[in-house]
């Protein structure tokens, strides 16, 4: 099974076979070469989505720093942790 720099690995959810797919196929459904059934390929490849994720992380850092300036280190850390947990939940839901 050849994996080159332009491909990523996928594992079939039906037969557990591993196979390479193009990086551009991240987030899509692809037919498994072993069992032939469609299986989901992890990851995202959309530039807009990457920008939104970056903006969310930047917003969290800025909010944490602002709260740190106003309310001190405990409040800043609390905002950062709560924000990170929310982002993690949203990420998992997607």
């Amino acid at each position, binding site marked *: 099974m050849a994996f080159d720099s332009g491909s990523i690995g996928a594992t079939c959810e039906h037969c557990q076979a591993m196979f390479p797919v193009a990086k551009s196929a991240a987030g*899509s*459904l692809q037919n498994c070469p072993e069992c*032939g059934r*469609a299986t989901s390929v992890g990851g995202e490849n*959309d530039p807009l989505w990457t920008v939104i994720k970056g903006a969310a992380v930047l917003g969290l850092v800025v909010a944490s720093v602002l709260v740190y300036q106003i309310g001190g280190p405990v409040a800043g850390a609390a905002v950062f942790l709560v924000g990170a947990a929310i982002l993690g939940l949203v990420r998992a839901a997607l």
Partner: protein
Amino acid sequence: MGRALPFSPSILDGMSIPAAFEADSYVLRRKFLKILGASFHVRDGSGNLLAFCAQKAFKLKEDIRVFEDEEKTKPLLTIQARQAIDFSACYDIVDATSGVKVGAARRKGMKSILRDSWEVLDADDHVIDKLEEDSAGMALARRFLSNLIPQTFKLGGGATFKQRFNPFIYSLEVSIHRGAEIDKRLLMGVATLIAAIEGRQDS
């Protein structure tokens, strides 16, 4: 462009091909007064129900299912968006009976600002056909004057999607041209997407 999409009934060996994948023309009609999500009846020229499409509400990623009947007992197709947020959204179309991906459809985001335009992809994500509004002038009139002007889409491989004039209920007529060798599963998936995605702009 315009390459024929071979239908592969071999995948359905031992199973009968659903009527929805044998019809040469049908109409998708949005169900009236559906509060959450959207659903469409697919009927042939005689009014017989060929399929029922249901779009799930409150899903971050677009998820549309096509069933053989309104009770949703037998799934025919599954259509899933690849990304929750995507400017040029791509939708994978899977034959729910065999579990095999039959292809995908990608909406061309930039181009669709002025004229709705889609690419039809095969199971390996190669572009095999193109679908777009038939007239640039009408597309512009629709955007800047009134979206009551019905849309017509032409698929290079031999099919026409024609919206019926109805200000209240979205209805899309699909005609597969004589002799066109089109994978009708993929075609029904694309028609469902057009009705669900483009049709949403009318409501």
